[in-house]
């Protein structure tokens, strides 16, 4: 087991919410609410969960773009949380973030080259010749011709934009890259080449990825470990093969059971989860999953379960995981 490169302890991010004179206070959205997570050197950690579970907010908070409300973040053992936004981002310069929609993340009026130069200038690479050399090298590494710098975002395909998004981050030589839904909206054949690129670049530059995705098939293929999030909390964390073979949390089981797989003899499994997740402004008492859980018992309304060991390198946050097997 390798050392953690990035750790979050009891991390929470509460968005919005305010107290109002003469009116009831507005409750904040508890987007991330007590997350414990560590990213090990060189691994690809998958972060899965349904929309609104806080995956993206967690990613942006680790990056330093969103300020945490509580808890701590350590990068290579050094405390990097509790800082003002600008310092927080500076302390975490070795973390990169690839935006969900790279097309929207690029300025349509700027050539690709201008965008790549700007990122490096802000990143502190003052020498233009040095920048040009690194940009050309990185564009080749992501499988593009350096002449692409003269082009504009609308001239490029979805797959090419992903590559630009990746090159833009990698020119800053990060150690950790947060990939937010890196394959959403890509066709299968393009997705395959992009996934391959992620693997090749990890090997070439010794990267560690936090791979945020809702596509369990892709996560299963790419990741070494998987963390499952539900309503702002990591509810299960285990090596990929283990979590798909022996999911312990009832939510993980429902999620894996619901994900359709390519199978010529496939049939639809009957739904095990009814309804929609409750609002993140009004979480249920006790376990936040109990309102939709098949195993829920009275005790689940009392105690809020935290991650506990459930096997080798396997953690689960459920009071009743032993009863569900």
């Amino acid at each position, binding site marked *: 087991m390798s050392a953690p490169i990035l750790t979050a302890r009891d991390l929470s991010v509460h968005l919005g919410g305010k107290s109002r004179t003469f009116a009831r206070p507005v409750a904040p959205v508890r987007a991330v609410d007590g997350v414990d997570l560590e990213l090990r050197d060189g691994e690809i950690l998958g972060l899965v969960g349904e929309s609104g579970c806080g995956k993206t907010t967690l990613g942006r908070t680790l990056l330093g773009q969103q300020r945490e409300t509580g808890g701590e973040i350590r990068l290579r053992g050094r405390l990097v949380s509790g800082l003002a936004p600008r310092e927080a981002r500076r302390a975490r310069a070795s973390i990169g973030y690839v935006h969900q929609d790279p097309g929207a993340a690029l300025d349509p009026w700027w050539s690709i080259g201008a965008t790549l130069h700007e990122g490096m200038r802000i990143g502190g690479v003052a020498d233009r010749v040095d920048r040009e050399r690194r940009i050309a090298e990185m564009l080749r590494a992501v499988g593009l011709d350096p002449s692409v710098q003269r082009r504009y975002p609308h001239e490029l395909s979805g797959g090419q934009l992903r590559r630009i998004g990746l090159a833009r981050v990698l020119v800053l030589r990060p150690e950790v890259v947060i990939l937010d839904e890196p394959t959403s909206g890509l066709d299968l054949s393009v997705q395959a080449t992009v996934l391959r690129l992620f693997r090749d670049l990890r090997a070439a530059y010794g990267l560690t990825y936090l791979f945020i995705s*809702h596509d369990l*098939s892709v996560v*299963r293929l790419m990741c070494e470990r998987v963390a499952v999030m539900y309503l702002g909390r990591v509810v299960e964390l285990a090596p990929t093969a283990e979590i798909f073979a022996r999911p312990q949390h009832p939510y993980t089981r429902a*999620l894996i059971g*619901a994900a*359709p797989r390519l199978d010529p003899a*496939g049939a639809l499994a009957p739904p095990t989860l009814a309804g929609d997740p409750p609002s993140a402004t009004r979480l249920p008492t006790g376990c936040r999953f109990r309102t939709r859980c098949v195993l829920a018992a009275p005790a689940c309304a009392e105690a809020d379960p935290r991650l506990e060991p459930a096997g080798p390198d396997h953690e689960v946050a459920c009071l009743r995981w032993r009863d569900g097997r």
Partner: protein
Amino acid sequence: MTAPLLSVEDLSLSIRTPEGEARVLDRVSLDLQPGALLGLVGESGCGKSTLVKTVLGVLPPAARATGGRILLDGRDLLRLPQAVLAREVRGRRLGFIPQDPALALNPMFTVGTQLLEIWRWHAPEGEDRGRAAGRARILSLFRRVQIPDAEAALDRHPHQFSGGQRQRVLIAAALLCRPALLVADEPTTALDVTTQQQILSLLGELAAEYGLSVLFVTHDFGVVSAICTHVAVMYAGQMVEAGTKADVLGAPCHPYTAALLACHPDRMAELAGIPGAVPSPLTPPAGCRFHPRCDVAEAGCQARPAGLTPQPDGRGVGCIRFDPARPAA
């Protein structure tokens, strides 16, 4: 084999663009048997949405069908006047479930008002198109698609429903006038997996219950595996392979089907991808449009007209290597 409910025969379609004539569909054929759930798959730009729009008769003005027929109940939809399509076909014979449930409903009106309007215009022949009858029909469908508190739901606006609930409202809308054919364009793409599972299982139940045939457009082979009985695969405006789910997904014949399936993360061994890019419909390659990217292409590929050749196992394959009168290479 019984006669198909919907039959697309050699449909070709062009769209005028400032850059010239885009040949978007090239001799596309498709049969949908009564009671079948046919998954229409292909990557973006392959023409699957255009095919659906042609069947629905909602093409943009710049589009023109240049050949072929679309037969439903023995009538060629391409030759029916819009007024007849609107009154007798859409809604009554043909229900449509759109991709994005948020965009398909008018935010200004309650869902009850919007569904009642459908009933007023498209109620089946011989049924009372009045408010009371419409309301009763909508309520019974809302209960069937498991919208909680159906009575109150009628008076809600679209934003008051979650994504999954809105998709249930639209399924009810599509089924309102008792169609025989349901066309669903990526109906679960905007939904989370657990919601997707609920909606797919509801669609499967309803199809069996009402004996519906479903044309299910999707790019997700997992969804096809879960719900469809048959699969048709398109590439760059041509149909390349069609058959039962077990045949096409289990033992693909066409090189494109095989390559695409090999790109699926559940199948992928070495993360290969397909070299090259999809050709522009403005300048499509001659013959089989996949030949420039195909591993096993030969000289005759450029001369093979688009279309499926029936195989002994019942599937159709659009590849020269599966043609009986294959010219000696």
